[in-house]
């Protein structure tokens, strides 16, 4: 099922898009990711992932209005497409179903 499969970083980016709502454009996504994960998110990496998500049809994008802070260039806003939402939900359910099968002591034991 290559193509619709969601990588870990892709999932994070997609979730961030969803979390940012109407303000989801590349630089903001990078900043937000950094805030969540505590690791620096490079624009180059995020940009490539956004492009891939869009190719897979999991995200949609459109150009916004021009603003002076960006040298007169417009921002590209992303939102999660329907397919994206399905993929996110499925990923979440998959994790939860596995979690449900883990007996509590198993994790505690290794600590």
């Amino acid at each position, binding site marked *: 099922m290559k193509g619709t499969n969601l990588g870990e970083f892709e999932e994070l980016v997609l979730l961030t898009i969803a979390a940012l709502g109407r303000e989801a454009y*590349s*630089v903001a996504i990078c900043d937000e990711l950094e805030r969540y994960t505590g690791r620096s998110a490079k624009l180059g990496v995020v940009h*490539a992932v956004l492009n891939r998500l869009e190719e897979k049809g999991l995200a949609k994008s459109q150009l916004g209005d021009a603003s002076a802070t960006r040298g007169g260039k*417009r921002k590209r806003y992303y939102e999660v497409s329907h397919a994206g939402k399905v993929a996110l939900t499925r990923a979440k359910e998959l994790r939860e179903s596995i979690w449900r099968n883990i007996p509590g002591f198993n994790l505690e034991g290794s600590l």
Partner: protein
Amino acid sequence: MKKPSQNPQPPQWATRFLRWYCRPRLLEDLEGDLYEYFLRNVRDKGARRARFIYMIDVFKFLRPYTLRKIEFITFLTHFMMIGSYLKTSRRSLVRNKLFSFINIIGLAVSMSVGLLVISIVNDLRSYDDFHEKKDRMYRVITRHEGAGQSPMNLASTSVRIGQRLKENVPGVEDFTLIRTGFSGDAQIGKNTFPLEAVWADRSFFKVFTFPLVAGDPRTALKEPFSLVITEKTAERLFGKSNPLGQTVRFDTLDYQVTGVAKEAPALSHLHFDALISFASADATMGKKDNWFYAWNSVWSNYVYLTIPKGGSPANVQRALDRINAEENKGVEHLKVNVSLQPMKEIALGKDLSNNIGPETEPVTLWILGGLALVIILSACFNYTNLSVARSLRRSREVGVRKIIGAHRSHVLGQFMAESVMIAFLALLFSFGLYLWLRKEFFALDPHIAKIFTLELSFRSVLYFIALAAFTGLLAGFLPAVFFSKINAMSVMKDAGGLKIFRHIGLRKALIVVQYTLSLIFIATTAVGYSQYKGFLNFDLGFNTENILNIKLRGADATVLRDELAAIPEVKQLSRSSMVTSVGSMFGDHTKYLPGDSALVWMNAVDEHYLPIHQHQLLAGTNFTTRPEKGKETEVIVNQQLLKRFNIADRDPRKALGKILTVGKQKLTIVGVLKDFHYGTMENKIEPVMFRYSGSEPWGYLNLQIASNDLTATMEKIADAWKRFDKVHPLKATFYDDQIEEAYSQFSVMVKAIGLLAFLAICIASLGLFGMVVFTTETKLKEISIRKVLGASEPGLVYLLCRGFLTLLGIAALIALPATYFLFDKLLLTRFVYHQPIGLPELLGGALLVMLLAVVMIGSQTAKAARSNPAKVLKSE
């Protein structure tokens, strides 16, 4: 506009690069993102660092998904438009006949030099290509390091290494051993022929690809005293009869002809008239002399080997290293190390002593290529200059194309295509010129024809075409960029709005560069020529005029001498073991006080030598005794020798009677000569001595000739020689000619640079002429108005000339000191004695070029200045 320091901007070229490669759909927001980060970095890390990060980021985004797809449609348009491009190019060529002529001839002239260099390089790279195993053939070369001597790199090696290779060295398929230096008189029946040959062992034909016409390549060189001759030699020795199985006698030994080989191709480093089986060398020399097989006897043997397909030379080298280590234990104060040299690096590789065949170091080729490139660049400058200058005429065409929908890339393509087309047109002319140039090149020196064939091959023709394409692109690049930048709207509205004089700085710079190069070339030629003449006419300290040197071939020449002395035109005769001042040196270790020994150059002469050559005796006399060889007691020395050994406080008179020890002989100084040049101009005057010798069978006879009819005299001498030696042809050369030959390399260089100077000046003059014509044409109205207002003709000429003359002045100011330093600091440092660099030579050529330029500029500007202002002004 704000100052950049207050509002830092990312580097423009990086942004432009991003725009160039990035997909249009991704470009806008990516550019914005990078800018946003840039502003952030400026705030956090400072402007300089921010710019650097921006730059890095631009490169980081160079990824497959951001790359612009090649727009097929653009290509398609180019393809469809080629017809139109050709048509407009042709029209513009025909419309401006003068400029087209200048461009095409200039490019053709310059490219012909390029073609010559390509042919030369191609020849050198094709050396030894005919060997079937050329890619896995190697030569064993030697590094000879004696204690207290400078190390030598030799192409030759020892016979010993051949013996060691027989003991199954891993990784060697075959090897062959050859030895040079066989020279003898071949007796066939009653006839005698001089013959030079190479010893070669039985696997010679396995390693090399030299086909045999007759005989068996496997056994031809197996037995001692077998002889393989080439077809040409066979004809010389045996005429039409079958040579195979015939007997040839050298001295007392009979050799049998076992094979006839084809002549070696011209581009082979190894050439031979005959091959003698190596077993014969073993029988005649090896059995008698242990030195023949010594590890350090590395002077005249050559070993070639092949490695099997897929084998590695590194393995063989390891085996050789081991042999080196083992064998070096057996020699004292000496290290001899052998290594492998690929066959293809023999003709074109590092400089080795004792090399066979021609040898060119790659750096020479780079210099040649550099010179050709300079000439080609000069012609490209012409093209660029004239095209940009004339842009006014074609800007409308570009405007219309752009309005109809041509992209920048289309216009760029059009003009590049045009220049390439012109370059191909020029290639046709250039090929004709090349054929002439090739003839001239061969005429430079007789040796050149032996090294090069310069024949056309598929590969060289391909390179020719590539050169034309390259030249076209080079010439057309700047004009094409210029035209593609034209703004369609402004051109169509007002053609005058195009600032044709905007690029004037560039054009001026190009003219200055061209003229600087031309002036350097011509000044180099003039100075070089005067130096060369200086070498020939240098006062050597003795007389060389009207002296004919006859080379002897091993026979005692008393009979010949008496016969020659009977010729009335021969005034005096002497004998000498060598000819001085032409580059050969011969020396012996000499002592005055015990413990202080030095190498002293020497010449063995008879009592007539000094008077004939008018050597000046400062003290003492000529040789007084006539001893037999090896029993002489007298020596005549020069001042430097007294200085070197500090004999009698350098006083010539007091030095007489002092005794020198040469080898084991004690010699009394009977005369002291004024210093003279024993070596060439490259050598300092060093200690020299003359020893007495009444007979020098391998030396020279020196004849002083006083003749009104030289041809008749030479015939008499030749007759006398023929009676004396029927086998060898007469080798007689005048001393002055021998000196000229000693400096022939220099003469070749001067001629070659002279040719380049001529071409460079032609091209630069053509270009300047074009620019002058163009400038006067565009300024015709200005001139007319000035004239109407009362300007005088000389004033107008001066006004028009001024700019160009300044440029020429600048060029001369750069070129002349540059040439002076080139000679003073680089070229002439090799020569201990040389003429001072004369101002006339330095300035003469420059003045000539300037004069040519002034005549060109003057004639054109005068024409413009004389034009009738009424007519010019009325026409609009």
